[in-house]
């Protein structure tokens, strides 16, 4: 079956999101673009296995994520620390008046373990539901919820944010964890 013009158009339209997700995973824009390129080639080859009418973005994110982890395994997981990104940015200074600088935030995000970072990005930024994120990461919905919760707590610790808005971290993590049972 040939690739339809609609499929190609939809692929093109998803590239900005794919690149954003790839940068979030790799922390490096060159590596991210290589990852997106691999993803597009794979998606093109596997287009027959995509079910029209289902979520193309989620399907592409799944391919990109699988590609990322298979590359990491090949390189023996030396990817992140090899450029000293982690050590260099360990220190984040307390922000003034509780207003966070975007660079500080980026630095904090880089300190998260991959599984937590991808979970909080998928849920908090890419607009996926917990169910979709679980499918993309090939894990249980409860696992995504706890990763998001841990990522959030970790970011708060790194950035020294306490008592977020009206909702304290304890109330929120118990709310997130509580809904696991459902």
């Amino acid at each position, binding site marked *: 079956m040939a690739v339809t013009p609609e499929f190609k158009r939809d692929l093109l339209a998803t590239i900005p999101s794919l690149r954003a997700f790839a*940068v*979030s995973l790799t922390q490096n824009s060159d590596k991210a673009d290589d990852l997106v390129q691999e993803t597009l080639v794979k998606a093109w080859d596997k287009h027959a296995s995509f079910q029209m009418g289902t979520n193309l973005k989620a399907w592409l994110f799944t391919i990109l994520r699988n590609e990322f982890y298979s590359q990491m395994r090949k390189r023996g997981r030396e990817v992140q620390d090899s450029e000293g990104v982690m050590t260099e940015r360990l220190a984040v200074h307390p922000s003034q008046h509780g207003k966070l600088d975007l660079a500080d*935030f980026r630095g904090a995000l880089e300190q998260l373990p991959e599984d937590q970072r991808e979970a909080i990005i998928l849920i*908090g930024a890419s607009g996926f539901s917990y169910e979709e994120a679980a499918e993309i990461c090939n894990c249980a919905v409860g696992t995504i919820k706890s990763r998001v919760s841990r990522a959030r707590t970790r970011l708060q610790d790194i950035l020294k944010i306490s008592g*977020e808005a009206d*909702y304290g971290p304890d109330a929120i993590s118990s709310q997130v964890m509580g809904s696991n049972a459902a």
Partner: protein
Amino acid sequence: MGRICALRGRGRSEQRVRIGNIVISTKDNVASAGSAVRAKDSTDPLGVSSEIGRKLKQYYDELVSDDVPDRFAQLLSQLEAAEMARKED
């Protein structure tokens, strides 16, 4: 065949559709959708009320709005051309 007509309740967002003797009201659906939205706003741990939620979106939106290099459109055109060539063989 039954007549189909729409009635609008006065001063509320209810919409009723009459098909023959059956009246379908949208009122309940509207009300529950509204409260679902409100519930999400106030309990979403990464919602607008959260500094981390806001920064996360700002970080990501900045990445999404980055200019996309031409290489990707070129790549898809190459894949398309390769497929055409295969079909003609």
